[in-house]
């Protein structure tokens, strides 16, 4: 089984919603579409499902062109943010519903329902009604129904967004385990980078209707090949700094000059963007290979074990994440350090020049 999008694009009333896209998804894989609201996640899923026909391009299922084929005639399942169950039916009948529509035998239905229920950890609840279940169990019931009919393609559009934070955390950890066995192609849309990391598999980062990178999730996170991907796949967002490389030195801020080592060493002379994640800004110097900043601290947020620093540096807004509870004065100057090994170098247009050296071996 495979699903392939060939030169697919979508425009509505002259506005581009999806730019020319090529994507190939394989059997038994989890594929996360990661992007902000209105980046094109749902549009792309509707095209994959056959709910919408793309303006141009082809959709191939197992090599066969299915562009324009009705959604009913494809073996797909879709789960939405707002999970839907039949309130008057038991969990058993909810899961059995698609199979009854397909007029399967009682024996077959019973076997499949119990198998799927066990996968979704619902075996003990088959005789209950949906409203007697917790929110997480209700969503698992909806997920079970999407799996039971043996769809080759399961599309999940932010399926955990309406759940409590803690339930979401548990289901995120369970979903990959539960789905590994089914062998279908999964496409999972989310706005949250943490969710993508926990789900694993592959990720396609989306930005304004374009896929900016598609690869194994960990690889995209650790080795983004452009600044937009790095920004989308980081929460809080990646921080950026403009600097100039000139001979042996790099120049940044109003008057900072540092010997160009590590990632900076072999750069050609020119102006670049340095990108670094919030947890790599530090309050203390750890080694010689660092940049130093005097940032303006605006607000801090304390989580109990860590402190988020919201600050501005030159014309950039940065967020830092440091260990421990830091009692710092608001609206004050703050001395910060950044290890050169944690810096990604991008061109001014956002294309990657050098991956941070700490990321190289991952």
């Amino acid at each position, binding site marked *: 089984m495979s699903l392939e999008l060939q030169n697919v694009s979508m425009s509505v009333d002259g506005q581009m919603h999806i730019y020319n896209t090529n994507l190939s998804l394989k059997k038994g894989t989890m594929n996360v579409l990661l992007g902000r609201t209105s980046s094109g996640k749902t549009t792309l899923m509707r095209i994959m499902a056959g709910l919408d026909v793309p303006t141009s391009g082809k959709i191939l299922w197992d090599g066969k062109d299915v562009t324009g084929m009705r959604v009913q005639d494809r073996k797909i399942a879709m789960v939405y943010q707002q999970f839907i169950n039949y309130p008057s039916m038991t969990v058993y009948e909810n899961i059995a519903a698609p199979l009854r529509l397909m007029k399967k035998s009682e024996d077959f239905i019973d076997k499949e329902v119990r198998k799927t229920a066990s996968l979704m950890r619902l075996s003990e609840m088959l005789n209950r009604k949906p409203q007697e279940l917790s929110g997480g169990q209700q969503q698992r019931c909806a997920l079970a129904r999407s799996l039971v009919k043996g769809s080759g393609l399961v599309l999940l559009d932010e399926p955990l967004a309406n759940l409590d934070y803690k339930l979401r955390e548990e289901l995120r950890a369970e979903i990959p385990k539960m789905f590994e066995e089914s062998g279908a192609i999964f496409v999972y849309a989310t706005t949250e980078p943490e969710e993508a*990391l926990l789900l694993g598999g592959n990720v396609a980062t989306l930005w304004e209707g374009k896929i900016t990178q598609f690869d194994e999730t960990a690889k995209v996170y650790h080795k983004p090949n452009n600044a937009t991907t790095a920004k989308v796949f980081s929460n809080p*967002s990646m921080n950026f700094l403009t600097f100039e490389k000139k001979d042996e030195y790099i120049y940044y801020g109003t008057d900072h000059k540092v010997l160009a080592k590590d990632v900076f060493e072999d750069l050609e002379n020119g102006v670049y963007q340095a990108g670094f994640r919030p947890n790599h800004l530090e309050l203390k110097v750890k080694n010689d290979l660092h940049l130093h900043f005097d940032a303006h601290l605006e607000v801090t947020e304390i989580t*109990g074990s860590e402190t988020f620093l919201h600050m501005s540096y030159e014309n950039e807004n940065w967020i830092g*994440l440091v260990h421990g509870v830091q009692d710092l004065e608001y609206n004050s100057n703050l001395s910060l350090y950044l290890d050169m090994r944690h810096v990604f170098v991008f061109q001014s247009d956002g294309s990657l020049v050098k991956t941070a050296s700490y990321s190289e071996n991952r």
Partner: protein
Amino acid sequence: MARITLSDLAHSYVQNPKNEKDYALRTLNHEWEDGAAYALLGPSGCGKSTLLNIISGILTPSHGRILFDDKDVTFEETTDRNIAQVFQFPVVYDTMTVQQNLEFPLKNRGMDAKYISQRVSSIARSIKVEDIMHKKAQGLTADQKQKISLGRGMVREDVNAILFDEPLTVIDPHMKWELRTQLKALHKELKHTMIFVTHDQTEALTFADKVVVMNVGEVVQIGTPQELFEKPAHTFVGYFIGSPGMNILEAEVHGNHALIGEHTLKLEHTYKALKGKVELGIRPEFMTLCEEGRGIKIEIERIEDVAHHKIVRARYNNANVNIIVDEDTIITDTMTNMTFDMTRVNIYENSWLVEGEKI
């Protein structure tokens, strides 16, 4: 601004409540300090919305009283309580401009035009909407509309309190940072009494001076983020706060020794004889994954690389154990054991924290 006192407050949606289970909100005594920022945190169905509705006056409690400073407002209507509210979904007047939306609560109160203009421009600056002041609200994105709702909630200086009911639910993760920071800065500046309801621990912990953690109709702990993290008063707080939450292991405690599975740990405190269910709690952040030969052997199920750290998911003595490992640590096949930072271990008796005596 006012101090808000809850006195023997409880609520049941049932006519003649018989036992604790009939109460959506169990008896609660609490004083909300004037000018402080609080968060009400808990899973859905924990009673946090019931409590918020009692404070705002949408709901009259079945038991007890609520006071604003020294005035009993238990039976007062919402409109007489002088509070501002911000809801989950933006409430703005689509046909009005941003400016008019922000002015509305002040005009309604017959404030002086000069004051209104000053006040509105100061709020607009704080929430960074100065460049869209003359736009009609209907053309704005959900994020921008919710910003306006927040701004309108903050515009009156004379309110007793501002209540927020999950105001960031519809907001994209990257915008949540911005809105939260603005709220926080506004609180520092204006010192309103604020109560913020949420099920999201990050929101609660980062916003509030003090967090009120609720579960099944009961307040289980009120504390600073640090207190909730380091000394959860109940295993529920340990579980609910932190990602992943605190590890809870069945234990037998005798004096200053704890037996977990087949291993004995020497504790930093000594405990009186404990009855019922005894458990040891330790956060994933305070554990170390180490080589064989040290600590206690565990069965590692998988390792998740989640951005700035790794989570080791393991089993020990029929319980899940999670360990947080630094992103730079390379985990080898021989790292199969766990050790605890013993200064961070908490002991629970029937789910409640017990304080031992320092040795």
